[in-house]
Structures are given as structure tokens and as C-alpha cells.
């Protein structure tokens, strides 16, 4: 009797367990049916990112068949990562729909990584797809910049060749720049009138190459003002330019043997804001009435404000900038304007040193080569030759 009862209980318990297991399986199966209503993406590939420093891998995949152009068909893709050291998958990012690549940066060089990916819409996910293991590797050269390296080498070789040739005593012809010829005339005029020369080295800091070009010209101008003992005023916008311009003017006066004529106040820091600087410089133009205004460097919206005030004050004006948008303003308001490359050539032309002039000739040679390339490109494009191959050689990335 007791044994029969125990068997009955056992049978009931087993039945309950079976029912519970069946119910749980049914629930899980129902959940799975819900979860895999989205088709998974396919063909997940992971490769080393080309042309990088070795800290990233690039993933590519094919879109889920459910990821169409229709808005909201899926939300995006969840990306998981594991490594040989830590094999558990961790969610690292989610990218939007219609995306087929992802770059995972900040990885440890030498470590192997594997990825998993699934499509996601609301609370539903597709099945995960997995990649093989891959390792980020260092690349020693940005191959997409090969064209720029070739151009740099050709350019440097051309410049160095002409510098060497100039060192050897070969005479080099450089065309005269009217604006530079006028510098001495302008300083002479200021000397005769007993008025100062105003030099503005642009409104950019020393990290701008145009400012350095302007300071180089300032050095040449300061030598002339030192010889003629003409007052020189150099207002600057940036403190670093103040220090550099101060050294340039001081050096020029020392070299000219006129160190007594140098005054630290020749180079002045007048303001730290663009239009406050304009107000200060225009004030100098109208109060001190300089006879010559020389603008050399990078200029922006203030170019015409300065040049027109100088024109109204009756000064002879010489400008030079490589900012194409400001050139028309200077051309309209100044007596002479150095355009683009002439600004960079000015210091070399004024120095008349063979080494400096040699670099200009080298630059001209490359310019001729580039003009040839442009003509070839136009011909190839007109004839539709090479399917744009020639133009692609010059693409900058």
C-alpha cells in the first residue's frame, strides 16, 4: 500500500516535470520564433585597416535581406567583439541600417580579435553571424599618398638642383616684380616726407606660412628703413608674431649698423581681435599719416577696411597675399599687389642671394611640369582616354 502510494507520487512528479519541461520548451521556441523574424546579415569579414598605424580592424558584411531602402525596416546592426585573451562577446557598437562596414579603432597591436554581428529592430534581433580571428598590423606607408610623395620628391630635387647650380655661380634670371621694385621707392618717399612706413604682416599667427613670408619681407624692408633712418611702425595681432617681428626688425637694424635707431615700440601689439585690430591700425593711419603702407601676409575681411583707409590717407600702398578672395580688394585699393606665389618669392627676390633665387627657379620648373600635366589631363578627358586614370593619379586623400 505504502509502496503503491510512493509510485503514484513519483508518477505524478514525473508528469509534472514533463509538463513543466514541455511548457518551458514551448515558451523558448515561441521566443526564438519572435527573435528570428529578422533575416541575419551575411558574409562578415574582418581585415586589418590599410594604411594605418596598426590599431584598428575593418569589418565588412552584406546587408540583411530585410534591410531595404524602406524606412524603419531595421534599426541597425549590433557589433560584438571578443579576443583570444577574453573570449566572451561584448557589445562594442551599433551602426545604422544600410551600413556595410565598420572600423574598430583603439585596438591592441598583436592581439587577435573576432567579431559577431546581428541585425536589430526594436526588441527583436536576427541570429548572430561570426567572423574569423584577425590581427591589427602596422603599415609603414600611407600608400594612398604615394602621388604626393612623388610630387614632393620631384619638387625637392628640382629646388635643390637649382640651388646647387646657383651655388656654382650660374647666373639665374628672375623676372622683376613691380611691387617689389616699388618698396624702395615707397620707403624713399616716406623718408622725403619725414613720415613713417607702416608694415602689416597679416592677421594670422606664426603657424601660417604667409605670416612667415610677410616677416621675411619685413626683414628686407626694415633694412631699407634702417639705412634711410625712416620711422617704421609694425602693428601685430598675435603675441607670437610680436616676438618674431620684434626680432626681425631688431636683427635688420643691427645688420645695417643702425642699432641706435631701433626702438622696441616700432613693433606693437595693438589688439587680439580682428576688428579691434582694424580699428587700431586705421587709427594709426589717420593719426600718424604714414607715407607708405605695406601689407604682406594672410588677410581676411579686414583687407579692404585697411587698404581703403590707407588710400583715403594718401599713402602709397603695396600689398601681397595668397588669399584669392582678398586679392581683388587689394588690387582695387593698392598701387601694387603681389599675387599668390609672388608673396613667397618676394623675400628671395629682395635678398638677391643665389641660394634663394635657385629655389624660385626650381619651383618654376615644377610649375611648368604641372602645366604640362593639366594640358595632358584636359586632352585625355576630352578624348575620354583611360577612363579617368590620369585624373585619378592626382587625387588627394
Amino acid at each position, binding site marked *: 500500500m505504502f509502496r503503491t502510494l510512493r509510485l503514484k507520487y513519483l508518477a505524478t512528479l514525473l508528469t509534472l516535470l514533463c509538463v513543466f519541461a514541455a511548457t518551458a520548451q514551448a515558451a523558448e521556441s515561441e521566443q526564438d520564433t519572435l527573435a528570428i523574424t529578422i533575416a541575419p546579415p551575411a558574409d562578415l569579414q574582418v581585415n586589418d585597416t590599410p594604411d594605418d598605424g596598426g590599431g584598428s580592424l575593418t569589418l565588412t558584411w552584406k546587408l540583411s535581406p530585410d534591410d531595404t531602402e524602406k524606412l524603419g525596416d531595421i534599426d541597425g546592426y549590433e557589433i560584438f567583439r571578443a579576443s583570444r585573451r577574453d573570449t566572451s562577446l561584448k557589445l562594442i557598437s551599433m551602426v545604422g541600417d544600410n551600413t556595410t562596414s565598420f572600423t574598430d579603432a583603439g585596438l591592441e597591436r598583436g592581439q587577435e580579435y573576432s567579431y559577431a554581428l546581428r541585425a536589430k529592430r526594436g526588441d527583436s534581433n536576427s541570429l548572430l553571424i561570426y567572423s574569423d580571428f584577425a590581427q591589427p598590423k602596422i603599415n*609603414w606607408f*600611407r600608400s594612398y599618398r604615394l602621388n604626393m610623395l612623388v610630387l614632393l620628391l620631384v619638387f625637392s630635387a628640382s629646388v635643390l638642383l637649382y640651388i646647387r647650380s646657383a651655388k656654382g655661380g650660374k647666373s639665374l634670371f628672375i623676372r622683376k616684380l613691380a611691387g617689389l621694385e616699388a618698396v624702395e621707392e615707397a620707403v624713399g618717399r616716406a623718408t622725403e616726407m619725414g613720415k613713417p612706413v607702416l608694415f602689416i604682416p597679416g592677421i594670422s599667427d606664426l603657424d601660417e606660412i604667409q605670416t*612667415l613670408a610677410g616677416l621675411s619681407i619685413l*626683414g628686407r624692408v626694415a633694412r631699407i628703413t634702417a639705412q634711410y633712418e625712416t620711422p617704421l611702425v609694425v602693428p601685430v595681432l598675435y*603675441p607670437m608674431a610680436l616676438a618674431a617681428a620684434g626680432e626681425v626688425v631688431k636683427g635688420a637694424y643691427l645688420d645695417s649698423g643702425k642699432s641706435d635707431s631701433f626702438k622696441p615700440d616700432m613693433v606693437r*601689439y595693438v589688439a587680439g581681435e580682428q576688428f579691434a585690430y582694424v580699428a587700431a591700425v586705421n587709427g594709426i593711419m589717420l593719426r600718424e599719416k604714414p607715407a607708405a603702407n605695406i601689407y604682406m601676409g594672410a588677410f581676411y*575681411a579686414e583687407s*579692404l*577696411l585697411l587698404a581703403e583707409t590707407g588710400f583715403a590717407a594718401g599713402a602709397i600702398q603695396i600689398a601681397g597675399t595668397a588669399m584669392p578672395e582678398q586679392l581683388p580688394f587689394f588690387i582695387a585699393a593698392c598701387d601694387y599687389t603681389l599675387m599668390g606665389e609672388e608673396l*613667397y618669392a618676394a623675400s628671395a627676390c629682395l635678398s638677391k642671394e643665389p641660394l634663394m633665387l635657385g629655389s624660385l627657379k626650381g619651383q618654376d620648373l615644377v610649375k611648368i611640369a604641372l602645366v604640362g600635366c593639366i594640358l595632358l589631363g584636359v586632352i585625355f578627358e576630352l578624348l575620354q582616354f583611360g577612363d579617368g586614370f590620369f585624373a585619378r593619379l592626382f587625387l588627394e586623400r
Partner: protein
Amino acid sequence: MKTQLPIAIAFLSGFIMVIAFFIPEQHLEDFSQNLLTFVTIVGGFTLLLGIVSIMRANIQVVVKRGKEWGFKLLLILMLLTMSISSFIWGTREGTVYHWMFQNMQAPMMSTMFSLLAFFIASAAYRAFRARTKEATILLVTSVIVMLGRIPLGQFLWDKLPIYTDWIMAYPNLAVQRGIIIGAALGAASMSLRIILGIERTYMGKG
């Protein structure tokens, strides 16, 4: 030494920046990034030089009761007020500095910028006088472009905007690109001269 050391620093800095442009090595990239940060830090320190320069120049005039000394005194007072108030109360909204910037400095800067409209008018008047063949071409082109950019131009002749776009997209752009290519080569040549130590005038030498 005084000449050679800056040239050596310029050479090394320039060379490393060029190398970092072509080689994606993390240490090189970090180094070139640090160089740029270093420039910013040096720039911050040189601000002191600027303040010393502006104070020295203006205090001298005020002390000697020179020309327009009242304006110089005002400049010194404003410089001190803005600096000291920003150190004490900060620069956020509601502070003295912020109020002065919004209600004094910004309107004054806007006023200076607005003057550009009048300067453009006077410069255009001189530039567009048809005294030579080139000036006449400039005048005709500018009239087409200006009219083509406003509704009145389209009202006068519906094809005017098309000709305006053509002028801007072909002759104008071609000239601009010519200038840009020349300037880029000039900048590269100048950089090479600086890196190799040939161009030293910007350091007060040579």
C-alpha cells in the same frame, strides 16, 4: 649657436611633420600632435609679452600727457577691468566680463565689420571706371554677375543667372585655381627653404 639651434629645431620639426604625414606610426603621430599642442602653449605664454607691449606703449603716453592720452587711459582701464573681472568672477553668462563683451566689445566689432559695405562701394567705384580695355571688361563682367545674383536681374532677362553661373564656374574659377596652384607651390618652396635653413630672415638673421 644662437642661429644654429633654431635652424636645427625648425629642420627637425618640419622633417618629423613631413614623415608623420606619410608614415602612420603612432609615436610619430603623437609627436607631431604634441608639437602642435606645444605651439598653443607657447602662444599662451607669449600673451604676457603682448600685454606688456600694449601697457608699456600706452602708459608712456598717459604719463607724458601725450596726444590723445585720454583714449590710452581708457584702453588701459578697460583692459584691466576685463582681465581682473574675468579672473574673479569668470566669463560665464551673468558675469561682468560677459556683460561687457556682449554689450560693448561685440557691438563695436560688428560696427567695424559693417563699415565694409561703404568701403566696398568706394573701392568698386574706382575699380569699375572704364578707363582701359581691361577695366571695361571688368565692369561689364561685374555688372552681369551682380545683376544675375539678384531677383531684378532675372526679372530683366531670365537667362542672366545662367551667364552669371557660367562666369563664376569657368573663367573665375580657372583664374582662382591658377592662383591657388601657384601659391601652393610658392608655400612649398618657402617651407623647404625654412626647413633647410636657407630662409632665415623670419628669425631676424641673414
